[in-house]
């Protein structure tokens, strides 16, 4: 270990450290800012809170129950939406990988094209369709569009293609298992690393989606936390006390998202059957 501190290593370390500071500084700032009053927010150094009042801020934040509701809504939209999207993607991707049918490639290309369309572009057309169906303003108007994930289908197909050996399916069929049983007890298990990825991506996507709930929802009680914080932030103009609430709210919601992601990451395991059939 003599050449542990070669110049190249030092440079790489320094770059990585700079990157870490670059990404972590805003997080530290928002956590510190969450403990400040509005006056201190602008009057004092960003990374130090001379008169911390986190308790008071949190008390106000959760005081009228609205913020708690927004957080729960966000978890519901993101959790239920991501779960449904994962199941649908797994089914579609598995079918496209393992069952040859006419138009399969055309269908897959269509899905690929869907990956390229940003969800913001789709928000207004979706709104017009949903209003024909009388669904706007409801919980479903945000949840239903969230269960579709072209990227998820793409990833599931690629992964199923690579990870599920045809020989395994053949032997399952020989043993007398039906297609549904094969999918649920073999396919899903083997695809689980990809499925966790799809779930996490979709979860973050729904959580951060701003424009869809914006056009769909008109009832504050159904807002996700992103929309709620934007509403508060806009009111700082007339009532600066909302600065404290917005900043503390942003810190809490970021923290909750970090905790959620960290706890879901342990499901990210390497492929179960890598090299299990042929050796």
């Amino acid at each position, binding site marked *: 270990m003599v050449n542990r501190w070669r110049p190249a290593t030092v440079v790489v370390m320094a770059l990585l450290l700079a990157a870490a500071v670059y990404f972590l500084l805003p997080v530290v700032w928002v956590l510190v800012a969450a403990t400040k009053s509005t*006056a201190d927010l*602008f009057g004092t150094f960003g990374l130090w809170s001379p008169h911390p009042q986190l308790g008071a801020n949190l008390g106000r934040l959760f005081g009228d129950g609205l913020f708690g509701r927004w957080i729960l809504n966000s978890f519901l939209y993101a959790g239920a939406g991501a779960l449904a999207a994962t199941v649908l993607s797994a089914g579609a991707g598995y079918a496209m990988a393992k069952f040859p049918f006419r138009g399969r490639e055309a269908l897959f290309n269509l899905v690929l094209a869907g990956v390229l369309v940003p969800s913001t572009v789709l928000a207004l057309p979706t709104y017009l369709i949903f209003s024909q169906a009388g669904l706007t303003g409801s919980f479903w108007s945000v949840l239903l569009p969230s269960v579709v994930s072209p990227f998820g289908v793409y990833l599931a197909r690629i992964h199923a293609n690579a990870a599920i050996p045809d020989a395994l399916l053949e032997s399952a069929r020989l043993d007398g298992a039906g297609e549904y049983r094969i999918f649920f007890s073999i396919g899903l298990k083997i695809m689980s690393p990809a499925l966790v990825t799809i779930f996490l991506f979709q979860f973050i996507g729904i959580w951060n989606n701003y424009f869809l709930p914006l*056009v769909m929802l*008109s009832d504050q009680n159904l807002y996700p936390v992103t929309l709620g914080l934007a*509403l508060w932030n*806009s009111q700082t*103009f007339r009532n600066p006390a909302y600065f404290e609430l917005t900043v503390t709210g942003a810190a809490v919601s970021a923290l909750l998202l970090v905790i959620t992601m960290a706890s879901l990451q342990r499901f990210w395991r390497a492929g179960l059957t890598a090299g299990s059939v042929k050796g």
Partner: protein
Amino acid sequence: MGPKIPRAARLVAAVVAMGLAAACGGGSSAPAGTAASGDPAQPVTLTFWSWVPDIQKAVDAFNTAHPGIKVKLETITPGPDGGYAKMLAAVKAGNAPDVAQVGYDSLPSFLVNGALQDVTQYAKDDAAKFVDWQWQTGVFGDKVYAIPQASGPMGFYYRKDLFTKWGLEAPKTWDDFAAAAATIRKKDKSAYISTFAANQAPWMISLAQQAGQQWFRTEGDAWKVTIDNPDTRKMAAYWQKMLDDKLVKTEADMSNAWYKDLQTGSIVGWIGGSWGDAIIRGNAPGTSGKWAVAPMPQWAGAAQFTSASWGGGSASAILKGTKNPGPATDFAVWLNSAPESVNTLLSAGYGWPSVKDTSQITNLQKDDTVFPFYGGQNIWEVFKQADAAVATDWRWPPVSDALYSSLTDNAKAAVQGDGTLTDAFAKTQQAMVDQLKAKGLNVVTGG
């Protein structure tokens, strides 16, 4: 969205333009709707979209006082943050609210988009209740589409304690303002009289509005754009000299640095809207009692006292597709003129009321949270005088968003030394002409 707007919308725009100039009389063909506003057994239900804090209290008061109408408030994100896009989408989908919060500066674009309901027949007798210039913002070609709610008449907030210490008085004219700015620079190296907020288009527009000639009006079926006019050039040259002499700061207003400067006394004045009192009180609580408000400084030789309004203000617009235009108008008028409602909205900080007779608005007579912060001064007297001195001939273009972004870009460049402020307004003039033409509207220019 293509570059061309639909033919129907273009027609509407043309009609609006004609009407503004040549008052084409009456002839409202809107169906009367259900006029069952007074029947408690069959209450009419209205939906109202707004983002004003605490407006629910005023809506509740309306519902209590009007058993025949039930208004349901839905709080949405503010117009510029996506609220307007949401409203226009809802109008297109046919499920728009009956009444919605729309800024004065956005009403023309709503009209061009065919999103406003003509309510002339229900509202024509209500004009006298409101300040003339505010009422006119909802009127296009003699037709009423929106009921004014509140504005932001301008005043000069200043640190009276420091002004007194330095032997200064509140500037009466813009020349006084420049002289005071120079004195402040001499007395305290770290202090400035104010910032020139190039980030804030509505603020710069209000300076131009006060200077004299207006920017937009209609001639025949064409929009006349006169941003680059002698009065605006005079104002621009004045501020350019202030920048050249380094008598004002150039940081953005309502930014972290600006809030901090208000707290520390590095910025000792602000030409701001009436709602700005809450911003100073909330962000610089440590300076309580040290502030005062004076009228906006005047141009030398002005025939009469003239003020302006920051970005106009906002209105309760009746949206296309409402089945109950009558009750919706009744609600919009009551919300913005009944003393109990105005008092409620005022304490929530919605701006300066649009009602003409403010003697019934008790919160304007005595305000124990506001006046002490300004050393006991009744600052509302200043803004009342200012609101009465806003030009009534100001018109917003149907492209306010583009106006704001163009003006901000050009002014920021000028502040950074790329050209002068006079150039910035000339460039904005050209950009607006292009923008209106791109919308398929006729445009004429001139001084």
